[in-house]
């Protein structure tokens, strides 16, 4: 990771956290305040990102939307990772037959494309933020789980662990000091990639009318609402879209800097 990448990504994360935690600091207005007379205003000094169909300030909404969008992305990724670590570790350390069983289970999870899985879950639960998080989380779990499993399996037979054995380290020490931290290291990079992807998938669900309910300023929902007015008010969808792209792209870059590969996304 080059120095500039490190500085850049640290700044990026800090800025994102700042925006998510104290949105009022950057955008003091109320993201829900309507003013029909001010609807569809193009970007101007008063409204740097214009206004939407109800006269709400897009900048204010984009800033305030960071929290919701990030929470969805992070919660979904955390869920996916949690499931993945449990299943992946179990598979890697289990006897052959159980490993094969878990692998099939993962393959079954994997065999249903993410959005289809999300729709399936929603078919059973009905729409909403919770189901969207569960859906996105679960559908990303198999990818992570496979990585955890292969990581642990590789490490388990690695010279590093053999060296620890030769040095007389017991199972607990080997697992705690070497296996777990090293197996989770590549996941760290994936987490950032995953958050970006989760934000995108959640926005797709919003587009399909199955995500965050209005008028919450969630980026995906804003983007979905704005696309109706693409001809008239491009700014309504451009800025939330940019926010998603920036977060996803930023996450990708950090992930790459941390040494992640795209394959398990």
């Amino acid at each position, binding site marked *: 990771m080059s120095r500039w990448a490190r500085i850049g990504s640290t700044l990026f994360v800090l800025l994102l956290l700042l925006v998510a935690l104290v949105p009022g600091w950057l955008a003091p207005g109320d993201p829900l305040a309507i003013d029909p007379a001010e609807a569809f205003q193009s970007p101007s000094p008063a409204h740097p990102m214009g206004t939407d169909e109800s006269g709400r300030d897009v900048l204010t909404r984009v800033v305030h939307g960071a929290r919701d969008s990030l929470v969805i992305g992070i919660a979904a990724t955390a869920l996916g990772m949690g499931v993945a670590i449990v299943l992946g570790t179990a598979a890697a350390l289990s006897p052959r037959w159980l490993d094969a069983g878990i692998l099939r289970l993962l393959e079954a999870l994997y065999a249903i494309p*993410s959005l*289809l899985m999300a729709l399936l879950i929603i*078919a059973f639960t009905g729409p909403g933020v919770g189901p969207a998080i569960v859906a996105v989380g679960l559908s990303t779990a198999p990818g992570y789980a496979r990585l955890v499993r292969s990581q642990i399996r590789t490490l388990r037979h690695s010279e590093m662990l053999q060296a620890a054995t030769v040095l007389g380290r017991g199972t607990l020490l080997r697992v705690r000091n070497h296996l777990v931290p090293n197996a989770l290291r590549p996941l760290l990079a994936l987490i950032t990639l995953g958050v970006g992807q989760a934000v995108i998938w959640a*926005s*797709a669900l919003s587009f399909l009318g199955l995500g965050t309910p209005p008028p919450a300023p969630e980026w995906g929902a804003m983007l979905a609402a704005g696309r109706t007015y693409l001809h008239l008010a491009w700014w309504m969808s451009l800025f939330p879209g940019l926010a998603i792209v920036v977060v*996803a792209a930023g996450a990708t870059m950090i992930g790459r800097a941390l040494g992640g590969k*795209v394959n398990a996304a």
Partner: protein
Amino acid sequence: MGTLRWAAGRVGGALVVLWLVATAIFIGVRLIPGDPAEAIMGGPGSQASAEALAAARADYGLDEPLRVQYLMFLGKLLRLDFGTSYALRDPVLGIMGQVLPQTIVLSLLALLLAWVLALVFAAASLRATRVGAVLGNAVEIIAAAVPHFWLGAVLIMVFSSTLGWLPAVDNGTGAGLVLPVLTLALPLAGFLTQLMRDSLSTALASPFSLAARARGDSRLQVFWRHGLRHAALPALGMTGWAFSSLLSGAVVVEAVFARPGLGRALLSAVLSRDIPMVTGIALFSAAIYMVVMALTEGIERALHPAGVDS
């Protein structure tokens, strides 16, 4: 491992996976709050009559114990009987026959385009200047981060509404496929470019590429003879994932471009709680995934017999 054994293992594994998916759906349907018969008839909004509900109960053996229902369900699936879509009133298998080719063609074209784009970009980035490399990097990361539905809307606005070059919806000619394929392919191409560039540069920096140059091959020949294969291999390994993400994308793209297909069928099936359709689509997409996985693994085996052991 012999090819025959490999194939047998693949088929067996696929059957287990399909069984797991089917079982999960069976359980899921029973977990839906409310009357399964009502769910079968299309949810509370269907205004199904009491007689119709009773008929559905009898039809689907909902009066039987759960164990019998499960066996009946599996039995039907084994006979490729996915039931009748409540919303469309057609056998699910028949509907699949109509929508599946549409989505597969769309996804395959997108996959192909993504591959070509990724290869071109990966190859171009090898010779790019510093500024060009940074720029290319940014473009591929952004491409991978753009939501399909928004990309589709923007492409329609630019190429259809404003420029009038390409049709927004299918008009019977192939031109109607251009925008949907592009919409699906661009984000995937972003991903694949990252992947291919890494493996391509590794391959072209390998001793065998130097050996090829030392034999008198031109750069282009080395690229075609060696770089391509090595760039393709990890991307090929990702094909299952890529295809699966394309199917996800197809749900959105088919909605944006009003194209018939698996994604649109699923969306409307989910919205109308059309459980047989949902079941059929889930099993079919799982089956497609398994087929794609088997095919790519087969190709990998052919390309790289020693490399497939994980």
